[in-house]
């Protein structure tokens, strides 16, 4: 086996960046999304526009920010405004093309949980005493409600339940609440007339959604992983029949990521876990 010249998180960034096409308007949060969009701009999508909810359009970072509203987030931007404009007019108002989102859990329909859950996945929980707590929605619900989106997530089996323990951001089948009962309905029927999940990029594989069933299937698996082993970690009966092995990233793109996008390891460093 040849020496591996890239890390797994770097592969995730490279693979996610492929969903960013030139001239797209991209909504990103802090962390991997921002790194991904920055790589796309430096490689195959130089005319892509990055939106951040603090209130910036088309920033060209001199130093990668730690927050979507900190001073570094605005460097080189063409419009400085506020959160209302970015989430209301752009991400929510269909003046954007794609969101790149992280999550603590993702389920078969691409619903995301970034907020909380019970001690044991699948059990009901008291919202006044959640078993675990993550940071929460931020703009993830808003952008997932209006835009196509790609999910980045660390590959651990507890992160892929059949149904998320708390639905923060809507995928293809979502919840309606009537007389104390939960009804699952297609996204459009619930009122979400735009957008929806496009792909889930984990640290082992890429899942996409079946045209008909809208259930996530294994589209690609990374070098060094095995579709059968991946299947064991997924909470639904995932179709692996269409899976192909992902080509490793080129040395050139890894060099751009390391030397031009994040030379100080501002975000790459945090992804090593």
């Amino acid at each position, binding site marked *: 086996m040849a020496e591996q010249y890239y890390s797994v998180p770097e592969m995730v960034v490279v693979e996610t960046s492929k969903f960013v096409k030139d001239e797209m308007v991209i909504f990103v949060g802090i962390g991997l999304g921002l790194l991904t969009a920055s790589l796309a701009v430096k490689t195959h999508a130089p005319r892509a526009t990055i939106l951040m909810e603090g209130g910036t359009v088309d920033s060209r970072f001199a130093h990668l920010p730690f927050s979507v509203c900190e001073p570094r987030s605005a460097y080189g931007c063409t419009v400085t405004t506020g*959160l*209302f404009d970015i989430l209301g007019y752009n991400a929510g108002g269909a003046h954007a093309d794609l969101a790149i989102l992280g999550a603590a859990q993702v389920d078969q329909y691409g619903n995301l949980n970034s907020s909380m859950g019970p001690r044991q996945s699948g059990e009901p929980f008291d919202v006044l005493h959640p078993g675990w707590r993550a940071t929460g929605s931020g703009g993830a619900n808003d952008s997932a409600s209006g835009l196509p989106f790609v999910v980045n997530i660390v590959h651990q089996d507890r992160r892929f339940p059949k149904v998320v323990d708390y639905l923060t951001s809507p995928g293809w089948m979502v919840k309606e609440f009537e007389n104390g009962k939960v009804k699952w309905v297609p996204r459009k029927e619930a009122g979400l007339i735009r957008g929806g999940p496009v792909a889930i990029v984990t640290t082992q594989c890429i899942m996409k959604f079946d045209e008909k069933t809208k259930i996530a299937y294994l589209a690609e698996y990374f070098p060094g992983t095995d579709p059968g082993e991946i299947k064991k970690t997924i909470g639904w009966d995932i179709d692996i029949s269409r899976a192909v092995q992902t080509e490793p990233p080129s040395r050139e793109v890894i060099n751009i990521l390391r030397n031009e996008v994040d030379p100080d390891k501002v975000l790459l460093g945090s992804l090593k876990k």
Partner: protein
Amino acid sequence: MSPAEAVKTFIKNGQIIASGGFTITRKSYAIYYEMLRQGIKGIKLCHVTPGGPDELLAAGGCLAGITGCYVGDELVQVIHPYCSRQIKQGNIWHEDYSHYSMILRFKAAAMGLPFLPTHSQVGSDLINPEYDVERKVGLRGKDSRFPLEKFHVMKDPFWPVHQKVCLLPALIPDVTVIHAQIVGEKGTARIMGPLGGDVEEAYAGKKVILTCDQVVPEDYMSKDPNANQIPHHIIDAIVPLPYACHPVSSYMNYDYDAAFLREFHTAMGDDSRRDKWLQEWVYEIKDHWHYLEKLGSERLSKLRANPAYAYNPDNDRSAYMN
């Protein structure tokens, strides 16, 4: 006025306080430190975006609950260690909305409307009645400052698609606390850099405390009125202070203090260090000048922003880089 006067004059136990700024940008720490020193209790905090003051107020025993969309400080993925634990234990409630929903609630209040619609939150557990926290803690129907319902989903009556939308109730804070870089003598505010949700939060508040880096004559503000966002008649108290937001940043003036924030977050998450940290950095501090003196001129000088960047390109951020 001073932070002590502003808190004494405007902030009372049990109020709904809106916290402006955005995680590590323009959070008026000087005001929140003072709230701890004055022993304010029972605050219902709300915000478009949270930040370290959530941790401070929680650790200082000032907080009853939070209405917001996020529990953390960004810095890639820093969850507030103390606050999140208190939420899990049920000691502090957290009512969950999306980011845009929060700004919409403030916008409705700012406009004097009872509610505004959005397609955000539709289909999600953010509108699951089972997770209606403000109802579960007994605020709905008892405290008139809280809406009778968390949300209301309805069909659009105007267009043939009849899209379902989520109506969100106005949120009127008793006091809003924001920070601007430049403020006219009467209160006209110029926020530099991304605005987050401060304009909506300011218009929504019954009273507004504005900390700022500089006060200038209103004549100066009128030379470039396009650069100003908040008119003077919205502002109730001007608190001019250097480094009012330390340890976080004020675009164009000073950068965030990553080492201080790391120490703060670590102490907040550690039972054996939290009280000691609060003693050292809050309760034993006489006022903001004492705080700055303790930080020292060298530390503060290193945070000064370079105008070509609006931050300090040489700022040591290693505390949050692995």
